[in-house]
């Protein structure tokens, strides 16, 4: 009992040196700072988009632009249905990622593997949806960087930067999802090889999870800015 009181008086010196003040290894702190940095990249993109849009005379109505889904034919009118499915898939992949991280804490390798595979499938499904959407816009609507066929909602000629921002920012996000899938595949291989069991902890999965959740979170903002507003 005497030892507990002794530690109680000396223990709270988290910042005293000799150990991590957050009680985590450096990689996780680094990941958090990286995510902050990346948040500024996306933040700058979205603010650039916002300033351009608010200073514009008009902007296309997303409900009239994003209204198709695969095999829906020419005259489909299902505004935002497809992108909602995409979003749902990505959010579910975050759930499976959480389960994988949780299983990692419990050193439950089969469960980590199972959930990582689901996360990878979710990521790939999202990327496939995005690929379909881009192909549809490119081939059927003739929208691309430098080409905007969609009229503004007030009937004037569509603002040039509508498609420019859409493809740049969702593309940049898609690139992040793609990197996340690659990271998760590497994590899956390492888990299957038993690297983390040998190491005694699944912290790498946790860091990959941080990145994955961040990418999902960014999508929530991208989705809001491009599809909802």
């Amino acid at each position, binding site marked *: 009992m005497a030892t507990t009181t002794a530690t109680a008086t000396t223990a709270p010196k988290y910042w*005293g*040196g*000799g150990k991590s003040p957050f009680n985590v290894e450096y990689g996780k702190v680094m990941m958090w700072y990286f995510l902050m940095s990346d948040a500024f*990249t996306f*933040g*700058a993109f979205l603010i650039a988009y916002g300033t351009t849009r608010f200073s514009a005379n008009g902007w296309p109505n997303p409900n009239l632009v994003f209204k198709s889904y695969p095999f829906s034919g020419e005259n489909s009118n299902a505004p935002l249905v497809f992108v909602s499915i995409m979003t749902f898939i990505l959010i579910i992949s975050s759930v499976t990622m959480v389960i994988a991280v949780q299983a990692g804490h419990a050193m439950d390798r089969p469960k980590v593997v199972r959930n990582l595979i689901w996360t990878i499938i979710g990521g790939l499904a999202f990327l496939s949806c995005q690929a379909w959407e881009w192909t549809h816009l490119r081939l059927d609507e003739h929208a691309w960087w430098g080409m905007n066929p969609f009229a503004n909602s007030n009937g004037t000629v569509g603002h040039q930067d509508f498609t420019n921002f859409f493809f740049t920012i969702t593309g940049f996000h898609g690139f992040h999802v793609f990197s996340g899938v690659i990271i998760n595949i590497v994590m899956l291989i390492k888990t299957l090889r038993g690297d983390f069991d040998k190491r005694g902890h699944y912290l790498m999965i946790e860091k990959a999870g941080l990145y994955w959740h961040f990418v999902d979170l960014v999508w929530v903002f991208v989705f809001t800015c491009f599809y909802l507003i």
Partner: protein
Amino acid sequence: MSNEAVLHANVEGATAHDAHHDHGEHHEHHHHETFISKYVFSMDHKMIAKQFLITGMVWAILGGLMSVLFRLELGYPDTKFMFLQDILGKWWVQDGRITAQAYYALVTTHGTVLVFFVLTAGLSGTFANFLIPLQVGARDMASPFLNMLSYWFFFMASVVMLSSIFVETGPFSGGWTAYPPLSALRDASPGSGRGMDLWVIAMALFVVSSLLGGLNYIVTILNMRTKGMSMTRLPLTIWALFFTAVLGVLSFPVLLSGFILLIFDRNFGTSFYLSDIFVNGVGALPNEGGNAILFQHLFWFLGHPEVYIILLPAMGMVSEILSVNSRKPIFGYMAMVGSLFAIAILAFLVWAHHMFVTGLNPLLGSIFVLLTLLIAVPSAIKVFNWLTTLWRGNIRFTPAMMFAIGFVSLFISGGLTGIWLGNSALDIHLHDTMFVVAHFHIVMGVASMFGMFAGIYHWYPKMYGRYLNNTLGYIHFWVTMAGAYLIFWPMHYEGLAGMPRRYYSYSAWESFKQFGGLNQFISTVALIVFAVQILFLFNFFYSIWKGRKLTTQNPYGSNTLEWTTPIRPGHGNWTGEIPEVYRWAYDYAKDGREFIPQTTPVDPNETNH
């Protein structure tokens, strides 16, 4: 106690070891290194620091040479330099005069190289790498591998930037700020084509390098401090480098976004920054709806913190050097940390003061004036504390100390004109004049160079185990110091008279003809100052092999941890255990003792500081 025993054992071991071969390494505690793993793809923070330093020095010479070339044009517009034409070729020099295109290319590359490659990578790359592990008491950076990548990304950026000088249409020539449309339209100017492609690739690589480095610096400072090294016991160098890294990690990504949009504008037909443009020979462009000012916002959101990325490491090192060489504790340690923090916060809130004349809303302008002038408060606190640290100190005028005092002088002189420029009303008259050139060269350029020189002179013995030559150091200091004022002071007058910057020739203006002689004077001094830097270069490289040997572990009687390592530390820095820290870094002239190293346990009879 056991620490001290270990340390003393180290000194003897190290000196005995070093006496026989200069390039000796300490085999006793790490595996054998090949030439490649030791000097090229090194993961030792000390070697990476030297790589950053020497690459930065190469760039400093190239960038300085560029300024000499365009100063020749400004100072001697009527003189023919035929030998330059023979060396550089007709694209650069025609009829013995720097061509207009070359002039703009030189100004642009000089700015880019000095700001990013010398004073960002060369300064914080060198000293963050060198000092952070040594002063916080860590064996290396948190991730030596990412640290190595950080240097090699910088190296690649350097190669790409260098190659842009040799392309047929010349390097980018639209100013270091790379404003569109000059940077966004390939046909806008010769340098806007291939030269700008290479410029933007180099800068993207540079951003990656800076991110990898910055993350490492932050994490090392937070996570890897030795036992007892609480945040408030850190030397001010480390605090400054910490805020520098945070600024870099949070501001470079915004520049990256700006560059990505710029790349799309250049290559993929977008109009993020373009609207209503007519190009001679091409006609009206189809781009509509973009805004060139958007780029300026994104650029200066990096650009202003960048000023402090350059300045803060110099401030940190100067604080340390002033205290050590005054044999006095730094005055107002917490105020120093607080003012660094305040500067770091304000750095993000003042970017639009570079844009007062872009048609910014005057109300917004006045807010930015207020926030800009607020920076004077922490800056004044720092100056006050430096001066009070010197006050009645037992000053040792080493070359490092001279440069540190020179830094304070330059920071005051340049800072005062900052108060002028921070006013949006005055800025209507002063923007884009030589006044601005004078201001930022003194307060940011030369001052940070002085910080860098101070750091090099001070830590050179730790880097190479030998001293720099002091006599050459004093000559270097006095000529550079006098030269800096002689070059930039007159520019204030030119600027006040309305003489614009970035002009190739002023001969068409009757009103600026009066400055012909002054320009000649400035250019001549610039030439002399550049020559003295060559002297420094000689001193640097000569002393690596032939300099006076360091024979004691702690030559300055310094408190910080880097002087507890062996004279030539191997990879891992300390041969035994990492020492434990018991006190802050500034116990000088306390209780009748000249200095008390951080590793000395607190005596119960000691007075409180």
